[in-house]
């Protein structure tokens, strides 16, 4: 049962508090701050995808006028076996440190090997060219299947995944799960299908490149400004990577120009701090777009084999999923998630699921919106659609027959609470889009998707201002309108006007710890901290009003922004104005580790038309149906649904990392790595389903990530239905479609 059942302002669509700054160009992003006396950092990058660094000579660069500092991997502590964070968020320093600066060996093209700071960006670039690095070049492997071959070059001779101790291989991880008796269940099944599907490595594609500026004072205190999804995480990582106490590192989050998971780590920040330390000057660093593609991000490419068994009546009885994920050069932990979550949408008591991660000479993969789930879902959901066709069933009816509901258990072992998959499937089945006949020459695909969603740590501080306005401080960077949801939630509890509430993102020294804006958690978890702090405020205001009226606090009620007892009332504003004589300043803080996270489900419907001459696919109609629990600001919930769908459509049709035989990325720019543009897409219709999350006071469920999960299988099916050729290897770009049509 949710603490709040009826809402007055939640669910409305006010203009976001930071909107004015963002439409007028005043908002400051990562590259928009300059510190007095700043100089400029530049990174020297490896021209080889796999090499031993024999020597680095910085003397010529350092001798240049205007060059104030150089650094190499020797300036960073040796990572050893330390691990940062815990649980799902844990990362080994040896997987993080070389993504900032290599030590002794480079494992991918453009990996950082040295850095220089000079009085202008041009001078820094010139000086970087004078840093002489001598390499012993090794053979490189960028294809994960080849990387598992017997004669493949080994990236890490000292790493053995659990249970594989014999010989070093490029296997980074191997996870195998089983419930029930899948083999026996397959024997019993009336229909069994087995297919293999693949998805390429891609990039999050945020428009703002990584940027930061750092200052280190004489006492060794660090003042760091950067674009990040989590400045507390930046402080923790930067401290660990540089050997500076985290207590001396203050991080201020700039406005953030997109992240999608890709800005939950550090690349430039520790380098800027070391260069600032060495030079005694603030150091600014802005990453070049090409390097954003070459060395940050990518989401793993994957190959998924899916075997499904069903009875003639459409009951799914067995599943066997095997997913191989490309980890890049270090362990980005991509294998566990597909193993645990592949089957999450369906009632399956007999299932086997395997995830493997492989080292390749490419940048370490990083989180991208529902990390690793879109990849495995392409296989699982497309197989579901292929199986529905084999059974002669409607693909949505087949899914409805097998959809998980409250009490069902997935591979992770915990029973679902109140979830909304069935509701989404029912809405999809009766939606005008699904009811409409498929247009001549077009095809239609549907798919469902799941994402677990995170809770993690959040904090909020509310300061009641002397005129009855309210400032909210949180440590959660606002990546897509979360200031608006914080203000709405506070307004709901306090009953004061939305316009009187001023949410801000505070620096690490000004508010309690907040984990990253990621895992679809900010509105849920940081919002919950705001709700709790607002409830404290109401309690204190009622207590003060009770003291004024000389009654017990329990008889005072709060509604419409005022304390009430009988005929008497005291408004929020009156209590704020008189705070000084009624007990002092009104400031409330709440911190929590949220245990309220609940999974999200969505169902997408896609119509597409393939031009059989050119192979170009046009998405003609697209509908996203998703359970949001309770939509706080529906326009920004719809925005997440539309944006996630667009990213999934791009990944389905075009987006792909292309490497040459030497391991260099061939398309490191927006011209050749083509994300969807406005003319590639139709309007994306949305239906917000609201099945309240029983664990959250307002019923909120995370909404940001799950919309990228269903598009690839939905688009792939629509393309198949339009073109008449079944393609299971993405992206479905024109050359691939033309080749398949010709082969046919």
């Amino acid at each position, binding site marked *: 049962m949710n603490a709040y059942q009826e809402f007055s302002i939640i669910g409305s669509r006010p203009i976001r508090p930071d909107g004015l700054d963002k*439409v007028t160009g005043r908002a400051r992003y990562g590259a928009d701050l300059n510190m007095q006396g700043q100089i400029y950092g530049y990174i020297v990058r490896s021209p080889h995808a796999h090499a031993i660094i024999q020597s680095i000579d910085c003397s010529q660069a350092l001798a240049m006028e205007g060059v104030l500092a150089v650094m190499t991997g020797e300036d960073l502590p040796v990572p050893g076996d330390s691990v940062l964070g815990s649980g799902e968020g844990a990362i080994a320093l040896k997987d993080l440190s070389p993504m900032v600066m290599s030590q002794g060996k480079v494992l991918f093209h453009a990996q950082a090997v040295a850095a220089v700071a000079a009085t202008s960006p041009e001078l820094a670039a010139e000086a970087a060219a004078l840093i002489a690095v001598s390499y012993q070049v090794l053979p490189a492997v960028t294809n994960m299947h080849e990387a598992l071959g017997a004669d493949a070059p080994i990236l890490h001779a000292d790493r053995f995944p659990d249970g594989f101790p014999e010989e070093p291989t490029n296997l980074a991880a191997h996870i195998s799960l089983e419930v029930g008796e899948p083999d026996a269940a397959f024997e019993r099944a009336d229909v069994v299908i087995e297919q293999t599907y693949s998805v390429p490595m891609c990039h999050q594609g945020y428009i703002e490149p990584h940027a930061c500026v750092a200052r280190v004072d004489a006492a060794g205190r660090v003042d760091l400004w950067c674009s990040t999804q989590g400045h507390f995480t930046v402080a923790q990582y930067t401290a660990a990577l540089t050997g500076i106490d985290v207590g001396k590192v203050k991080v201020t989050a700039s406005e953030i120009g*997109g992240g999608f998971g890709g800005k939950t780590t550090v690349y430039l920040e520790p380098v800027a701090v070391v260069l600032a330390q060495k030079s005694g000057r603030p150091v600014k660093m802005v990453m070049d777009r090409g390097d954003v593609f070459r060395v940050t991000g990518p989401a793993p490419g994957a190959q998924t084999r899916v075997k499904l068994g069903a009875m003639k009546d459409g009951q799914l009885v067995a599943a066997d999923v095997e997913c191989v994920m490309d980890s890049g050069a270090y362990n980005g932990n991509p294998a566990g998630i597909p193993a645990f979550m592949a089957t999450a949408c369906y009632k399956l008591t007999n299932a086997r699921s395997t995830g493997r991660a492989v080292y390749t000479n490419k940048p370490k993969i990083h989180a991208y919106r529902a990390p690793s789930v879109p990849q495995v879902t392409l296989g699982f959901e497309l197989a579901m659609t292929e199986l529905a066709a084999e059974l002669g069933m409607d693909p949505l009816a087949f899914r409805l027959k097998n959809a998980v509901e409250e009490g069902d258990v997935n591979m992770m072992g915990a029973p679902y609470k109140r979830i909304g998959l069935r509701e989404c499937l029912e809405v999809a089945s009766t939606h005008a889009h699904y009811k409409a006949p498929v247009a001549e020459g077009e095809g239609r695909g549907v798919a469902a998707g799941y994402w677990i969603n995170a809770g993690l740590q959040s904090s909020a501080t509310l300061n009641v201002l002397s005129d009855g306005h309210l400032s909210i401080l949180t440590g959660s960077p606002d990546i897509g309108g979360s200031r608006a949801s914080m203000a709405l939630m506070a307004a709901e509890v306090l009953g004061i006007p939305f316009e009187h509430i001023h949410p801000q993102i505070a620096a690490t020294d000004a508010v309690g710890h907040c984990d990253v804006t990621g895992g679809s958690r900010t509105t849920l978890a940081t919002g919950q901290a705001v709700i709790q702090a607002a409830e404290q405020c109401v309690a204190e205001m009622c207590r003060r009003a009770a003291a004024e009226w000389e009654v017990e606090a329990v008889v005072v009620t709060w509604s419409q922004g005022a304390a009430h007892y009988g005929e008497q009332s005291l408004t929020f504003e009156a209590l704020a104005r008189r705070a000084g004589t009624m007990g002092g300043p009104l400031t409330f803080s709440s911190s929590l580790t949220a245990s309220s996270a609940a999974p999200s489900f969505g169902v997408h419907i896609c119509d597409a038309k393939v031009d059989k001459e050119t192979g170009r696919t046009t998405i003609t109609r697209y509908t996203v149906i998703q359970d949001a629990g309770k939509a706080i600001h529906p*326009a920004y919930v719809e925005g997440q649904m539309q944006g996630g769908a667009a*990213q999934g459509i791009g990944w389905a049709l075009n987006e792909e990392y292309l490497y040459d035989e030497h391991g260099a990325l061939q398309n490191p720019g927006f*011209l050749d790595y083509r994300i969807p543009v406005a003319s590639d897409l139709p*309007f994306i219709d949305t239906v917000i389903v609201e099945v309240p999350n029983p664990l959250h006071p307002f019923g909120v469920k995370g909404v940001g990530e799950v919309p990228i999960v269903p598009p690839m299988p939905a688009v792939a099916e629509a393309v198949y239905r339009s073109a008449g050729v079944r393609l299971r290897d993405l992206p479905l770009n024109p050359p691939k479609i033309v080749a398949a049509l010709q082969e046919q």
Partner: protein
Amino acid sequence: MNKPLNKMAVQATINGEPTAFLCSPGQVLADVLRDELELIGTKIGCNTGDCGACSVLVNDRLVCACLVLAAEVEGQAVQTIEGVAEGGVLHPVQHKLLEHAGLQCGICTPGVVIAAKALIEHNPNPTEEQARYWLAGNLCRCTGYDKIIRAVLDAAQQMREDAAV
């Protein structure tokens, strides 16, 4: 700041104000706007003319400021995002973007505002398709463009209605 030795003096009208600045011969307009004139609303997403975040108007022509040499704007009129709201009153495109929630992270927004304003000045009654092709040079990774296109069409309609009154 960028301090090459060889500097040129350039005079231009920027957001309606006569402005003089120094730049090196190879410096692009986007860098001068941001680093010399502190007009940081012009964003740099790619520096190769692919993303449109640095869209500005030079003599009412829509260009990527990262592809224009600063010295080229000698004697020209440049409009950046900072010059769009007049006397603190938002342009209809800005207002409609806020109303429709046509921005999430906001990094593409200044470029979208400039490009959409140019579209409506060029074609007061754009179709959805015309708006989509006109804005195809402004990448947005957050929104899927749905609410941006709705906001632009709505702004165009409002401006037509305002003009008719």
